[in-house]
């Protein structure tokens, strides 16, 4: 009884719309890790990173402290 995800316009198809929401959040998570790596490589502090993300310094550090600076090639 699955509906196929691509058979209706975006607004009328909750199935597709929910999939987009999930995908946008995953994309944001990935871009966030990439941006943190670049920011650290440019010498940003965690306080700056947190401010740019609109989160607390604790939240930023807890979620993202495993990211290491991008190595320039």
């Amino acid at each position: 009884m699955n509906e196929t995800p691509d058979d209706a316009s975006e607004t009328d198809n909750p199935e597709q719309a929910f999939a987009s929401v999930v995908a946008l959040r995953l994309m944001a998570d990935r871009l966030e890790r990439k941006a943190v790596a670049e920011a650290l490589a440019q010498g940003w502090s965690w306080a700056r990173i947190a401010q740019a993300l609109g989160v607390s310094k604790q939240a930023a550090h807890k979620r993202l402290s495993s990211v290491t600076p991008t190595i320039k090639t």
Partner: protein
Amino acid sequence: MLKKLTQTFRDMGTIKTLCEAAEQIANAEHQPAPGAEHFVLAALELPDGSAARVFRKLGISAGAFREALRDVHRAALMAAGVNAEDVAGSERDVPPLPRPSGPYNAAPSGEAVLNGLAALRKRGVTGPLIGAHVLEVVSAMQHGPSAHAFARLGRDAPTVMAAIQSEMAMAA
């Protein structure tokens, strides 16, 4: 009693293998906690081979399913209006997640898989836990990446369920 205990112990080993594999697969996709779709991919690697046989019956490979999951993600971003180049760019050079530590943490759909496996026992399913059980639980989920990936591969839910039932009948 001893048999039941042994059963439980054997299942614990299978569950542990399954959970750790699902976590590794999720992490490789930059997702900290495994969802149902990562349990499917993990089930395909279980030594009992039943999930892999179901996939062979369906004429699809683990690699094709994995790629279908990625396609589903990309199509969902493009449906939201993101252009293909930025979709692809978002997947490149993502810093890896840290090695998991602390208590095991599945995503809600992954938890639903584990609960579904426990519920199989309550429904009287006997014998050791096998990969096909994981497929059975996940294929009963109407929504989520796995349903979309199967649909994308042209395998609708009844077809998937039939292949699982056929494998179960062979195993019994």
